[in-house]
Every structure is written in structure tokens, then in C-alpha cells.
């Protein structure tokens, strides 16, 4: 009696190419549910993650205060970028609303700390998130009716209106100087004042948002969002509640950006309506594009590149030898050059690596994994 008749699976036929197939499958495809669900999939990845964590945790000691300052801003940027990537890269709802939600979170923080000066930041953060989430539910309404470019336009319009409301509220409550935000602290335990404290504090939130994204992708909600992104009518047919999914996507990501706005307010200490420009929303969109749509790791890479690049250029300009031709011109126009390079970077990625940094990364990994069968095409 054969194995199949006994209900046992047949032994796979060992072909000489078996190992190669397995390696190819390992590069992109998952062959079992446990690998599909695993966060840490292979030992090189585990080593890399441990090395990365050690690098990030010891960054203030190894790279000095300047790099720590830049890394702090990157850590502050990551939650918002993750939220936009969930909304845009996973749920497929394009949005230019990051700056507006950041503003809502910051203004709620200003209101609460102004009204109740002794309020703890641990209460302010979720409240800022909840208010932003409530507004997010309203912003989701256009998403139920329009899609694609029209949704982008409507979030742009909502951005303009929300920023104007922040301006009116600022004029009526504090005037042009803006709101002053106190130092976040737990009385008797600690207060966050020094740059190095800010670095570790914001790192915690960056890590939480990364875990949130990589986990939500493996839940029912995350899979529903992916289905809505890839084809909303098809998703509806297989039983996904499209309306609910879109609202969930907007509410959850708005919550994250609202909390980020509260962190931003505590970090910069003075809040004005002029901080929340459309350019900020563009920064987040470009982080998602440059990092890679739908990828957690890509978002972090994108945030590091987009936020860090201007500082890097500045360092190059300052440290360039003065006999270097055009050095003075370079230094004179450094601010505009930062902008030009940033814009060129967005265009370059779209034209030459439309799936972002994470695609470049996978190409490199794929090259070594497939070696010696690597061709340029293996890991597209």
C-alpha cells in the first residue's frame, strides 16, 4: 500500500536541483505557515537585528553628540512615517495629511499642558492620539467616496483647513509667540531634558511603532487592508468589510501620528501653526516612497536617509577643504542645495528604484543568496 493511500504525504522526490529550489523559495516565498508568521526568519537576520540593536543603543557613545541629535530626529520621525506607510503602502489610501495630524497632536498637548500644568505626559500622549484618531475618522469619510488622486486632493484640502483652524485657535488663545510646552517628567522618578535622554525616550516610541506595523501585517486587519489595496471590489466579494477597513486604517494611523505630534510638541517645546506646513506632509510621503511601500524596515531606512541627508550634506560642506573648487559656493547655497538634492533623490528613486531602498536591499541579499546563479533579474 502506498503512502498516499495511508493518508501520509508522499516523500518529496529528491532532485539534484532541490537545494537550489529551496534557496530560491527561501529568498521570496514561504513554504509553511510558521515561516510566514515568524518575525525573525533566519539566523543571519537574527545576527543582523542584534547587531543593529546594539549599534542603535550605543550610538550616543560611539558617534558623538551631533549624530545623536540627528538620530533623535530620525527616531521622532519614524512613528509618523510608519503610520503613513500603513495607510498608504498597506491599506492603499494615499494621504497628504501627516502634517495636519501632527499639528492636532501638538495642539492637544499645548491645550492640556496649558489648562492643567501638572498633567503627566503619560496621560497627554494617548489623549492627543485619541483626538487625532477622532479627526481621522472624519477624514476617512472622503475615502469612502473617492479614491486615488481624488483622495490625495481631499486630504490636501483637509490639511489646509486644519492648519487654518490651528492658526485661528493660536491667535485667540496665545498669540504669535505660540504655546510653550513643559518638560515631560514623572515627579520623583525622572524628567526628560538632556539630549541623550530624549534619544532613548524617542527610540522607545520608534520601536513600538515598528513592532506595531510588523505585527499588524500578520493579523486579520492587516490582511484586510492589503486586500483593499490590491482590489477593493475583489476584497468585498471575499468578505472583507471595505468600509470598516478604510475607517480602521485612517483611525489607527491618525492615532499614531497624534501621539507623535504630542512627542514633537514636548521635543521642540514651542508650538506655532507655522510648523505644520505642506512640506512636512511631503517629507513623510517621500520617506514612504524612498523607503519602500509596505515595508517596516524600508520605512526606517527611508526616514534615516531623508532626515539624515541634509545634515550629512551640511557636514560635507563644513568639512570640505577650502581649496576644493566651488567650496565657497557650496557653503553659501548649502540650504538650497539640500533642498535640490532632496528633490532629486525623490525623483531618482521613482525613476530608477520605484520600490525604494528595501528593493535595493533585497537585490543585494538576493544576489548573495542565489550565488552562483545570480543574474540581475533574480530578485526583482
Amino acid at each position: 500500500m502506498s503512502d498516499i493511500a495511508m493518508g501520509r504525504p508522499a516523500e518529496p522526490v529528491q532532485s539534484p536541483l532541490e537545494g537550489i529550489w529551496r534557496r530560491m523559495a527561501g529568498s521570496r516565498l514561504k513554504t509553511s505557515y510558521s515561516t510566514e508568521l515568524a518575525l525573525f526568519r533566519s539566523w543571519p537576520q537574527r545576527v543582523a537585528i542584534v547587531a543593529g540593536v546594539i549599534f542603535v543603543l550605543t550610538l550616543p557613545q560611539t558617534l558623538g553628540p551631533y549624530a545623536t541629535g540627528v538620530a533623535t530626529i530620525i527616531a521622532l520621525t519614524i512613528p509618523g512615517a510608519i503610520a503613513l506607510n500603513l495607510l498608504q503602502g498597506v491599506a492603499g489610501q494615499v494621504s497628504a495629511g501627516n502634517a495636519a495630524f501632527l499639528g492636532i497632536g501638538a495642539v492637544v498637548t499645548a491645550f492640556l499642558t496649558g489648562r492643567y500644568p501638572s498633567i503627566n505626559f503619560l496621560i497627554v500622549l494617548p489623549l492627543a492620539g485619541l483626538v487625532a484618531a477622532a479627526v481621522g475618522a472624519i477624514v476617512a469619510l472622503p475615502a469612502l467616496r473617492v479614491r486615488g488622486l481624488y483622495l490625495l486632493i481631499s486630504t490636501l484640502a483637509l490639511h489646509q483647513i486644519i492648519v487654518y483652524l490651528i492658526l485661528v485657535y493660536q491667535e485667540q488663545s496665545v498669540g504669535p509667540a505660540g504655546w510653550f510646552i513643559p518638560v515631560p517628567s514623572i515627579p520623583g522618578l525622572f524628567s526628560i531634558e538632556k539630549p541623550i535622554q530624549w534619544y532613548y525616550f524617542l527610540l522607545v516610541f520608534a520601536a513600538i511603532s515598528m513592532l506595531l506595523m510588523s505585527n499588524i501585517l500578520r493579523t486579520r486587519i492587516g490582511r484586510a487592508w492589503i486586500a483593499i489595496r490590491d482590489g477593493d471590489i475583489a476584497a468585498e466579494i471575499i468578505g472583507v468589510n471595505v468600509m470598516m477597513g478604510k475607517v480602521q486604517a485612517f483611525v489607527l494611523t491618525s492615532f499614531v501620528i497624534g501621539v507623535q505630534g504630542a512627542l514633537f510638541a514636548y521635543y521642540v517645546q514651542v508650538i506655532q501653526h507655522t510648523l505644520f506646513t505642506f512640506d512636512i506632509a511631503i517629507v513623510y510621503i517621500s520617506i514612504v516612497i524612498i523607503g519602500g511601500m509596505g515595508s517596516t524596515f524600508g520605512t526606517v531606512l527611508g526616514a534615516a536617509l531623508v532626515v539624515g541627508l541634509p545634515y550629512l550634506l551640511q557636514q560635507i560642506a563644513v568639512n570640505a577643504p577650502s581649496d576644493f573648487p566651488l567650496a565657497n559656493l557650496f557653503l553659501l547655497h548649502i540650504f538650497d542645495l539640500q533642498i535640490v538634492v532632496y528633490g532629486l533623490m525623490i525623483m531618482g528613486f521613482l525613476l530608477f528604484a520605484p520600490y525604494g531602498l528595501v528593493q535595493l536591499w533585497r537585490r543585494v541579499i538576493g544576489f548573495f543568496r542565489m550565488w552562483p546563479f545570480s543574474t540581475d533579474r533574480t530578485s526583482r
Partner: protein
Amino acid sequence: MIGSFPVGDVVVSSIVLGGAYILLGLSWVVIFRATRVLNVAVGQFMALGAYMSFTFLVTFKLPFPIAIFLALASIALFAGLTFHFFVRPLHGQPHFVVVVLTIGWSIVIGGAISIIWGPDLHVLPQPVPDTVYLLPLGARLSTYGAATVVVAVLTATALVLFFRFSRLGIRMRAAAELPVLASQSGVNITVLFFIAWALAGICTTFAGIFFGYTNVVSPAVAAIGLRGLTPALIGGFESLPGTILGAFILAFVEVIGVRILGGAAEDAIVAAVLLVFLMIRPTGVFGQAEVRRV
């Protein structure tokens, strides 16, 4: 308040502002209906047009008509080349990707303008002195305000006639409708798309020049560009008469709104008008609902 409401002034200011919005709205519509691209860099093209006319008029001291012609031609070429080098390679990508590309391009142009012309304000030299005419009902009309409306209406009419009757315009509509079929029947669609971008560049430059004459030329000009989205959307990104109507509706609401809420509310009012039309008639006032296939 209502009793002393300057009706004549509101009407005339709306018409003048509407003229500027016609030019801006057309810049969005002409590109969108040809290539399905939202060109976010419209504001930067506009600023570039104003700066180029400044350079031709002041730096090269060219006579007025030649300088304006050169500014129009250079931006038209610039817009066409933008399409050729950056937008065409992305053909077939999702619309959103191309929008982000034009965002990147607008950032590059903004930085380049700042490097080339510096952060200072520039004033365009006036070929004829600006006089203000007093009209009945307390209305005031300046020479350049009137010129804006005249040029806007002439440009819009020329475009409508061009798309409706000329051989090139009809081919352009065909190419926009079904690019593959049009190219199969011998229409060179890449050339047509290039021309569409150049035409939009001309509208944008007109808007920039008139904005430069009624205000000053500064990097802030670029921020005006996004307001053209609203008239374009009221026209459904498709219909030129709809865009013209949209420009006047928007201008009227904005003039009244700014009187009530103050100048800081300008962008919010434009955005509110956009949202209202997006909710009521996302296909535009003269548009038809498009049948969507799965």
C-alpha cells in the same frame, strides 16, 4: 454691514481673480486630460515664468513683447522637456507615483530658483503705467487686472477652439481618450503629449507674469499654484468651460470669504470649496460619471 457691502468691488475683484484662476486651472486641466498626470509643479513653473520674464526684461533689457514671448517659449519648452525626461519614463506606473515625481521636481525647481535669483523680491518693470479706473457701485479696476481677465479669456477661448476644431487638437483628444488606439492609427502621441505640456506651460507662464505684475516676484509665488486644483476639479479635470466656470465660482467665494474671515483664510477657503465640490460632484459640473471596470 450688509448695507455697506461694496457689491461692485466684490464683483470686479472676483472677475479679476477669476481671470488668474482660469489660467492656473487650465494649466492643471490641459496636462491632466492629455496625460492623466496631476502636475504639482505648476506653482514652480509659474514662479519660473515670472522670474524668466524678469531676467529677459531687466537683465537682458529686451523690449517688452520679445521678452514676454521668450519667457513663454522657454517655459513651454521646459514643461515639454519635463514630460519627456521625467513623466514619460513612468508611463504605466500608478498615477500617484507620477504625482510624487512632480512633487520632487517642484522641490528641485524651488531650490534652483532660490539659488539662481536669491531670496529677494523682484519687481517687474511696467510697459504701461498702472492706472486705476473707478467704475460704478464703488468698483475699482486696474490696468493689469483688466489685462489678466482679457488674456485669460482669450487663452481659454483659443484652447477651446483648438481642442474642438483644429486637426492637432482633435488628435490630442483622441490620444488622451485611448492612447494605444490613437497611436495605432498613426497619431504620434508622444509629440502630442509634449505639445500638451507645452501649452499648459504657456498658461502657467501667463498666470505667473500677471501675478508678478499685480504683486511682486518672490519664491512665495509658487505656493499659489496648488489653488489651481480647485477650478480644475470643478471642471472635472476634463472640461475647459467647466474650469472657467469653476475659476469664477472659486474667485467669488474667495473674495467674499476673505472679507469675512481675513486674508489668512485664503487657502482654507479654496480648500473648502474644493471639498464641497468633491463631495457633491466629483466628476465636475459638466462631467459624466465614468463607468468603472473592475
